[in-house]
C-alpha cells in the first residue's frame, strides 16, 4: 500500500493555486462578482459597508427600500443584529451604499443640507416612528428643537420621555437628525455617538456657537 500512501502525501502537498495571498484576492473578487449578480436577482436583503468620516467610522446598511441603519463605529455586533432583526441574507457589498456614502461625504464637506437618499424605517415602530418622521419633516439643517417641543408637534405634549426614547433608539442617526433634539434650556443631552459627536454635528451645521 506504499504507493497509495505516497499518492496521499502528494495530494496533500499539491494545490491548484498554492499562493494564499493570490487565492484570497481571487476569492474576494469572485465573491464580489457573485454578490453583485445576486443583488441584481433580488437575493440581497441587506447590504452593509463601513465608511470613514470626520466623526469616525460609521457602519451603513441598506435594504432594497433604502438606508435602514447607520451605526457609530465598526461593524462588530451590528451585522449580527441586522441578520436577526431583518434577514440572514446580509452581505458586505460596498457598491450598494454608493448613494448614501456620497450624500454623507457632501454633508460632511458642508455641501449638503438635506438628505435625499431613500430611508427604510422598518426598524422603528409606532409612536417612536411617528416622532422620527416628524423630526425629519420639521427640523431642518442648522435648527434645533427640545424634546418637549417635538412632543408637542406630534400632538402629545406630555410625551417628552417617549420622544427621548425615540431619539435614543433612532436606527438611522445623522440622516434622521436626532442630534438636533436638545434639553429645554439648551443643554445638549445624550447621544448615541457620544456628546462630543453631537456637539461636533451641531457646530458643523452652525446651530451651536464656539
Amino acid at each position, binding site marked *: 500500500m506504499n504507493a497509495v500512501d505516497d*499518492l*496521499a502525501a502528494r*495530494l496533500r502537498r499539491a494545490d491548484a493555486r498554492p499562493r494564499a495571498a493570490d487565492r484570497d484576492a481571487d476569492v474576494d473578487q469572485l465573491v464580489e462578482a457573485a454578490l453583485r449578480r*445576486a443583488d441584481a436577482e433580488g437575493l*440581497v436583503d441587506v447590504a452593509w459597508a463601513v465608511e470613514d468620516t470626520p466623526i469616525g467610522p460609521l457602519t451603513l446598511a441598506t435594504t432594497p427600500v433604502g438606508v435602514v441603519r447607520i451605526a457609530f463605529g465598526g461593524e462588530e455586533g451590528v451585522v*449580527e443584529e441586522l441578520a436577526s432583526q431583518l434577514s440572514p441574507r446580509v452581505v458586505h457589498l460596498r457598491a450598494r451604499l454608493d448613494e448614501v456614502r456620497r450624500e454623507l461625504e457632501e454633508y460632511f464637506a458642508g455641501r449638503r443640507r438635506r438628505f435625499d437618499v431613500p430611508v427604510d424605517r422598518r426598524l422603528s415602530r409606532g409612536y417612536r416612528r411617528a416622532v422620527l418622521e416628524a423630526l425629519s419633516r420639521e427640523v431642518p439643517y442648522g435648527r434645533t428643537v427640545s424634546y418637549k417641543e417635538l412632543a408637542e408637534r406630534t400632538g402629545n405634549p406630555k410625551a417628552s420621555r417617549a420622544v427621548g426614547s425615540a431619539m435614543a433608539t433612532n436606527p438611522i442617526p445623522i440622516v434622521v437628525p436626532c442630534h438636533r433634539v436638545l434639553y429645554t434650556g439648551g443643554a445638549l443631552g445624550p447621544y448615541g455617538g457620544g456628546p462630543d459627536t453631537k456637539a461636533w454635528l451641531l457646530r458643523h451645521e452652525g446651530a451651536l456657537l464656539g
Partner: protein
Amino acid sequence: MPRDLTERVAWTFAVAVRLPPFQSLLDAHGSDLHRFLVASAGPHDGDDLFQETVLSALRAYPGLRHAENLRGWLFTIAHRKIVDGARGRSRRPVPAADPPEVAQVDGDGLVDAELWEAVRRLAPKQRSAVVQRYLFDRPYAEIGAVIGCSEAAARQNVRAGLHRLRQEVTP
C-alpha cells in the same frame, strides 16, 4: 399547533433558529470552498461554479431550518454543482482556451498539474471525496454528508479514487 411534546419541542426549535449573517459563511468558508471547486473542476470552471454556488446558497439560505454544519451545507451545494457541471460538460464542447490570467496561473502556479488533471477525470463522488479528504482532512462522516452517502461509502469512495489515481499518474 403542535400536539405532543416532541412535536412542540421540534416546533420551538424550528421557530428559534438563528441564522448568522450570510457574509460570515463567506468569510469563514469562501476560501476553502473555492479551493474545493478549483481542485475538482479546474481553475476556469471552478471560478464559475464558485459563483453559482454562492448564488444558490443565498437563494436557499432563509429557508434553512437549522444552523448546524453550515460549512457542510455549502459544500453539499458545491458538490451538486460539480455533478451537474460534469453532466453539462459531456454535452457541450470544451472551451478552446482559458482566459490569459488563468493561463498565467497554470504557467507558474499549478503544483503537480498531472495529478490534478487525473483527479478531475475521476467520477464526481470519488473526486469530491478525495479532495475533501486530502485538501481539508475532513472526517469520512462529513464527506459522506456532502456527497450523499454513508461514512463507510465515503471511505470506499476515497479508497477507490486513490486506487484509480495510482493507475493514472506516473509515480
